[in-house]
């Protein structure tokens, strides 16, 4: 039991390290995330990696990928992380959307999209969630009907929500309802769409936190060719399942605060009894210890999953514990840190608040993280059902035509 690379892995790591040293651009991380410049920079770096075979490492070379192994991707990511170059804008496209296109598109479609996506020329987004279809994505109402001109084209109307990157994406995969007269899982179909079509309108969502990292996307008479269909008509749910399987892995752990930062803060503020620092305060020490243990547990769990990859296996069910633990832990840590800051804890001005307001931001970020990519409750259901094999919840919607299902406002 060790953390060592195999000889092959070590050789790959050496090469990756040398290449990065030579090629990695200097990056001003203080600059605003996802600004226009940032996107240009990200695309240029992606192109460079693609040329060297370091983009989409496990994908076949024919697609433009590296023809390598999942473990090689992990190793490259580790080395790349040191340069602060983990641009997020390709994650959803290359992690979820394009693999779906590759799995369900025809040969022409695959040939058209794989290369530009790998090189970062084109960015993709995923259009599944709707206002009334969050945890229950199969309840999507955005509808597609065949155009009445006999062209075989589809006309799409409706709304999607919580779309990351819709405003800088070139294409998207879109789940729509093509038949409301059959039970809900059976009337869905998947398409790829052009996000620059004027019938597509992207509006940023004003989040509870005040920020706007996600979008609503509206479709008004959007016309798509039948050749844009991914999978059969009415089989959209099966296509979506393939996409979603990747999502749970992609959302990953909490970010924003880690325990060394907490420890640093604890060293700087007075203890609750007015003596010493909070770090010397046994009440806070015990909480710090518990958080450390949880964070280490998650880190070592990732090491187990990587071991599976390194051995050429699929990571086991332990990979599913990440977000359900880390999101709530982040909320607790942020709240507790504010408590220890006492009256001062309410201040969220980055110029005044400890760690530039990381606790106050983390308190909101955690609230979102507990919902995004599967709520705490849905993730526990998934662990109970898929990992432990317990029965599914009783379903009342399996055999009812979608149009006859009860629904909210």
């Amino acid at each position, binding site marked *: 039991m060790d953390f060592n690379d195999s000889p092959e892995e070590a050789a790959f790591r050496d090469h990756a390290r040398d290449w990065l040293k030579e090629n990695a651009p200097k990056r001003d991380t203080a600059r605003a995330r996802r600004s226009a410049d940032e996107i240009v920079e990200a695309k240029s770096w992606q192109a460079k990696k693609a040329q060297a075979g370091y983009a989409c490492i496990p994908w076949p070379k024919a697609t433009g990928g590296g023809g390598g192994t999942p473990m090689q991707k992990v190793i490259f990511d580790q080395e790349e992380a040191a340069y602060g170059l983990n641009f997020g804008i390709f994650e959803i496209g290359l992690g979820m959307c394009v693999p779906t296109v590759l799995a369900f598109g025809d040969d022409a479609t695959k040939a058209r999209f794989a290369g530009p996506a790998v090189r970062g020329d084109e960015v993709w987004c995923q259009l599944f969630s709707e*206002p*009334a279809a*969050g945890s*229950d994505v199969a*309840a999507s109402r955005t509808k597609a009907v065949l155009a009445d001109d006999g062209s075989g084209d589809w006309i799409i109307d409706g709304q999607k*929500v919580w779309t990351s990157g819709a405003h800088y994406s070139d294409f998207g995969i879109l789940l729509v309802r093509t038949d409301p007269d059959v039970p*809900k899982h059976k009337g869905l179909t998947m398409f790829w769409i052009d996000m620059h079509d004027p019938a597509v309108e992207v509006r940023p*969502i*004003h*989040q*509870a*936190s*005040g920020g706007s990292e996600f979008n609503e996307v509206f479709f008004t008479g959007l016309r798509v060719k039948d050749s844009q269909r991914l999978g059969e008509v009415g089989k959209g749910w099966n296509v979506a399942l393939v996409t979603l399987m990747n999502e749970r892995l992609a959302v990953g752990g909490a970010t924003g605060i880690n325990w060394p930062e907490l420890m640093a803060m604890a060293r*700087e*503020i*007075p*203890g*609750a*009894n*007015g*003596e010493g620092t*909070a770090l010397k305060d046994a*009440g*806070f020490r015990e909480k710090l210890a518990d958080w450390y243990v949880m964070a280490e547990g998650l880190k070592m769990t990732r090491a187990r999953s990587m071991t599976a990859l390194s051995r050429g296996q699929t990571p086991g069910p332990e990979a599913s514990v990440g977000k359900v633990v880390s999101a709530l832990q982040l*909320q607790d840590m942020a*709240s507790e840190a*504010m*408590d*220890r*800051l*006492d*009256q*001062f*804890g*309410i*201040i*969220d*001005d980055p110029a*005044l608040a400890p760690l530039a307001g990381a606790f*106050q931001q983390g*308190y*909101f970020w955690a*609230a*979102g993280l*507990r*919902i*995004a990519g599967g*709520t*705490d*409750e849905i993730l526990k*259901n998934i662990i109970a059902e898929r990992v432990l094999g317990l029965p599914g*919840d009783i*379903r*009342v*919607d399996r055999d*009812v035509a979608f149009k006859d*299902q*009860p*629904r*909210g406002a």
Partner: protein
Amino acid sequence: MNFDWSDDQKALKGEARRFLDERCPTTRVRKVLDDAATLYDADLWKQVAELGWVGAAIPEEHGGTGLGHIELCALAEELGRSVAPIPFSSTVYLFAEAIMLAGSEAQKTAILPKIAAGDLIGAVASSEGPGGLTPGGLRCKVEGGRLTGEKLPVTDGSIAHHAIVLAQDGQRPSLFLVDLTGEGVSRETLKTLDPTRDAAKLTFANALAERLGEQGQGLDLLQRIFDRAAVPMAFEQVGGAERCLEMAKDYAMQRYAFGRVIASYQAIKHKLADIYVKTELARSNAYYGAWALASGAAELPTAAAAARLSATEAYDFAAKENLQTHGGMGFTWDADCHLHYRRSRQLGLMVGGPPVWRERLIGELEKRNAA
């Protein structure tokens, strides 16, 4: 046994709720939230003063309505429910209580009637930096009747006319009354997690300061003021928690997932049951605090600490799980969940966070046990 609202108190609460439902819907709260230049709802403040709420616990001889502290708590619960964006807690629970507790007759006569009329907003300024108050950490000082130093955050510090300030005064700290409109006072509005309530940094440079209460008794007086304020604040928190439970229930009863309302899933049912349990425990502890405050009982320090801890726990939990129950919708600006997510932290930190109150509670219990 008479451990509940009287019929009159229930009627008062009912009136308050009707008034606030009409005059303080969340659309009004959002005006303060969205407009950085609007620091509180001045119209609403005027109206509640006219209704006699601001002076509810101020004796009639000083211009108040003399209703009493139980009635003040009843109003507080309704104000908490409606997330009212007015300087009630600072002015009424803290500032007015401080004047009543420690003020000279002259100070009372000069100030209390103005408070009751809604003409004077007051603040209490103790914190100077991160972490709990410590005598050693206090850098504000008064020499020759002049105050120098910085205080932050001061709730309603941007809009208050007067502040009571904790400052070094020779050997030990005292409280001082300072006219914030006078010379040597500058203010800077702070960015906080809850923009529906004002907070400021106050900087004093030889500002005139009038001692409040005995010299050297500042920390002890401040603690007694915080004890008194913690009780109506706990009612605000209970009111907020109850509102969160209602919001979560209403949403869960009309939101469908997998063909049925999410309120029919045990994960949601038990979550709401947990909110209910915490809220009822907090309500019971708050009642005891109200009794201790109104009756002048010696148990006030422990009763206030229990009320505060219980109410902070309940409102924080209710605000978090209400947002969670709303799912993606709860994480939008348009949903009201974040108003409570913000206010619960504002109320939970304003007179000190749970760690210092736990310590105070156990310290008091040790004393009682030793006696």
